[in-house]
């Protein structure tokens, strides 16, 4: 399928808008528990999900919002689900980590790595019941260390399943830098399982689209799975209220809570050698520093990147954006007004 930049932008912009509103609602306390945004992943989602056809399936991780939206799930029902309401997508039973839409063959999981087996299973059913259709698996860099995901890559190769594995590499897994706990190169892992693997800039929707297009054709033709490694950034950190980001953003206020006990511990009489201790302190301050550096777009925002491309047609862009803003606001208002 050919990419339609405007269509992509529309979807990416809408998703971003929606998640910005979700952030506000979350901060107001109307959404309980964790909230993982897919903000920063929009190009990866658009470049893959917008190419799906009827009968295709997707397995989503804890950041399923943009994929659900772009697949056509009603944003009102999504937000109501986040709010735990009975008119939510899953009648308030699932929450944002457990979004399910049977009609779209779209299922989420809060268990890291579970999307690999799920996509393999969807692909198996699709091959039998809806020939030519595929399944997407979305997961992060951290998930690449989860056994069931690795297993599922082999399974998909062994059974020649129509799966596209999409690794959204944010460099981080909660507060852990993936590089510090991950050996080798991620694409090599896929190659080690016997499937073609490509590494791309996940903020470039065109690159994602093209790579995904090849993978999808391959899968639809019955030639088996492939692996896409796409980099991205989560400007809100792991989840809303990310502790490292809180410290990085409000060092005076937030560091106080942490620093006291930490310093007290560090200078405690018994314990490791001074050398080791200062090494540990360095570990922590590095984490905070790296967070501050990594977790913002620094020019790598998929949305503004595409926007720059479309800017020539200036009037159209603003008109579209205004429309989408209004549309989103209407949904949010409706969701907040409902009871």
């Amino acid at each position: 399928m050919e990419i339609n930049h405007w269509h992509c932008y529309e979807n990416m912009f809408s998703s971003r808008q929606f998640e910005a509103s979700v952030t506000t609602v979350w901060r107001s306390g109307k959404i309980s528990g964790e909230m993982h945004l897919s903000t920063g992943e929009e190009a990866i989602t658009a470049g893959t999900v917008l190419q799906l056809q009827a009968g295709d399936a997707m397995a989503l991780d804890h950041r399923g919002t943009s994929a659900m939206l772009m697949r056509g799930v009603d944003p009102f029902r999504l937000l109501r689900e986040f709010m735990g309401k009975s008119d939510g997508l899953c009648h308030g039973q699932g929450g944002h980590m457990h979004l399910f839409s049977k009609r779209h063959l779209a299922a989420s999981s809060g268990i890291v790595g579970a999307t690999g087996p799920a996509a393999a299973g969807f692909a198996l059913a699709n091959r039998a019941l809806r020939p030519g259709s595929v399944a997407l698996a979305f997961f992060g860099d951290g998930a690449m260390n989860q056994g069931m995901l690795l297993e599922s890559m082999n399974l998909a190769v062994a059974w020649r399943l129509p799966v596209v594995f999409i690794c959204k590499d944010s460099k981080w897994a909660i507060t852990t830098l993936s590089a510090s706990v991950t050996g080798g190169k991620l694409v090599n892992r896929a190659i080690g399982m016997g499937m073609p693997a490509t590494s791309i800039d996940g903020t470039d929707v065109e690159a994602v689209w093209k790579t995904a297009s090849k993978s999808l054709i391959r899968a639809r033709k019955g030639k088996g799975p492939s692996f896409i490694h796409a980099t991205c950034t989560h400007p809100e950190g792991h989840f809303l209220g990310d502790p490292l980001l809180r410290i990085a953003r409000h060092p005076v206020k937030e560091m106080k809570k942490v620093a006291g006990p930490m310093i007290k511990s560090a200078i405690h009489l018994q314990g490791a050698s001074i050398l080791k201790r200062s090494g540990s302190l360095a570990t922590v301050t590095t984490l905070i520093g790296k967070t501050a550096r990594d977790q913002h777009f620094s020019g790598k925002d998929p949305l503004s990147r595409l926007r720059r491309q479309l800017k020539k047609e200036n009037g159209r862009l603003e008109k579209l954006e205004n429309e989408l803003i209004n549309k989103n606001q209407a949904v949010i208002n409706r969701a907040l007004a409902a009871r």
Partner: protein
Amino acid sequence: MKTNETMKTMSFADAIEDALATAMATDERIIIIGEDVHLLRVNLLSRFGRDRVLAAPISESAFVGAAVAAAMGGLRPVVEVMLVDFIGVAMDALLNHAAKTFAFSGGNWHVPLVVRAACGGGYGDGGQHEQSLWGWLAHIPGLTVVVPSTPADAGGLMLSALSHEEPVIFLEHKLLADYWLDYLGAGGRDTVTYDIPMMGATGPVPDPWQPVPIGKMAIRRNGSDITVVGVGVGIHRALEAATILAQNGYSAEVIDLRTVSPLDREGLCASVSKTGRMLVVDEDYQAFGLSGELAAVVLESGIQAKYGRVCVESTIPYSPEMEKQALPNTVRILAAANELLLKR
């Protein structure tokens, strides 16, 4: 059950296979997934082909997880984990996915999955290969657990499991499904013998197959002094014990739960109300399992009963002599029954 005209005789293993084949012939959505199924299910393979009998790598968490999603995608997979002991590596797929999708989706999305596994001990293979775990799995809301003790129930429960809309764990005891004994125990030897319950390993089955309802127990022997309740091989041990008890003037009722979850509370309570005594025979671990739940069910119903249990209390030892003691054998059942019968 039907009259004899419409019955034939079959082994426990054949009954499962026959019921499966019958269902597969009419429902194209049923597929088999598992390690070594090209040999273990060679008959189904040769009839239904490789697209419906899928040999899996040793990747239980991937292929059980995949089976969950395949069920969501419209198939009706029977996924085999060989021995139930191996479910450990795939537990997440059951605990957090198979069991929860219906609830999470707000009741919109079913997972019509059968997880098939061999269970149980008595052939000297050690504690990582002889567990039962039915009570353990039944703890998780959203999982149905069935444990047949006769060929008729094995086939009939398989039929029911295959048409159930939610995940069913189907456990076949190795002392009943005899190919496992050959595969994992005898290996073609005639120098080893096992205490195989004959009435369980072969028996009459309805022709054509009738589904056995999930959640319905069966009274295997009527009695009035004590209710002996269990599943699987335990039923046959209990029947043996009941015969001996009868010789001593005690009348034992033997109840085969057939389904561990959901329990047939009514049937159980009716029997225990009548006898006033409940002895649980359970090859799963004793603590925090089936035997406890049965106690709770009875107490909850306000029945005042004497209670005892004969279960597996620790890791099953490899040594055949020690293993015999660790499993609920007839001697242990008799001793416990007699103790209960003496209580006033």
